[in-house]
């Protein structure tokens, strides 16, 4: 009787240790990066956002249970030049006064095999919400989990670049977004 109890208890601890040990949920803002490449007159221009916060939980053993949320401070944009930075805060682009942040809320994560996954969710910019999906890869580095992925955003879906800027021959509709998110493993849940 008592040996059975000890055995069961040991099994429970081992099982809990196996399942719950690695959940990545401590978002590391200083190590994470959000960059994008826009195209002007066929010329790729690098840009980035310096300030964004978020929360996530991802357990590689149970990816479908993962969730993520990202809040993006649009004022922290670097669109590639001073001119561009002054321009994109205005009404035709982000209209920062009305819409200072963009948010992403995940709805599902799907394993694609190996270290590949697919993230689906809703992206809201400038008061407009669109479904997006983004493939990403996951790997561990020490106690950190690293998520690298990206997707192509169609700027006109979010009314980014109204009026004269709607001409996609000058600034392409497609903007390649790339994320590099680093999260530390949370203190082990047992």
């Amino acid at each position, binding site marked *: 009787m008592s040996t059975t109890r000890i055995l069961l208890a040991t099994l429970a601890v081992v099982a809990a240790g196996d399942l719950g040990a690695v959940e990545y949920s401590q978002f590391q803002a200083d190590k994470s990066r959000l960059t994008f490449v826009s195209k002007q*007159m066929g010329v790729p221009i690098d840009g980035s956002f310096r300030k964004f916060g978020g929360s996530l939980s991802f357990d590689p053993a149970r990816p479908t249970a993962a969730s993520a949320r990202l809040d993006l401070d649009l004022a922290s944009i670097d669109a590639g030049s001073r001119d561009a930075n002054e321009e994109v805060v205005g009404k035709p682009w982000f209209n920062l006064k009305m819409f200072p942040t963009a948010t992403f809320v995940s709805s599902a994560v799907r394993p694609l095999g190996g270290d590949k996954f697919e993230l689906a969710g809703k992206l809201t910019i400038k008061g407009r919400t669109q479904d997006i999906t983004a493939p990403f890869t996951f790997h561990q580095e020490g106690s950190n989990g690293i998520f690298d992925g990206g997707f192509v955003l169609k700027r006109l879906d979010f009314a980014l670049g109204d009026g004269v800027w709607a001409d996609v021959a000058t600034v392409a509709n497609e903007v390649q977004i790339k994320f590099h998110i680093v999260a530390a493993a949370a203190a082990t849940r047992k």
Partner: protein
Amino acid sequence: METRYTRTAIALHWLMALLLTGLFCVGLYMSDLPLSPQKLKIYSWHKWAGITAFLLVLLRLAWRVGHPPPLLPAGMPAWQQAAAHGLHHLLYLLMIAIPLSGWLMSSAKGFQTVYFGVLPLPDLLPKDKELGELLEVVHSGLNFTLAGLVVAHVAAALKHHLFDRDDVLSRMLPFHASKH
């Protein structure tokens, strides 16, 4: 010894004089425009035309190696001959340095040059904002130097034609009238 410039040299001289004048005016005009799709288009055209000028001057110098310019009139004082040669060399130097400085500036600013939207030219420098702004000043300074020298160059050509009444101007003109 030839007494005239070759047709090729004449054609390149005047083609480039037009192109450079256009580039200069467009350059001044465009850099003061507020950002707009129109401005981005003009910038691209300026860069494409500027690279074209760069290619043309290389072609022109290659041609010049095989076809030396006619001698200056024998009666010209030695210092004037030296000044003329010096000035011509400076003009060539600037015709190379200006587009190069533009290309370097665009590279440093992170705006690659894609020739006519088709052929991506390598960036000569990694992105560096401060350096980009410095090169903008260099590009502008070289341009105003060229403008000043061209004024002197034109003045000298007119002096030869109107006062010295020699063939220095007419031997560079495409439709050569008989000497007067």
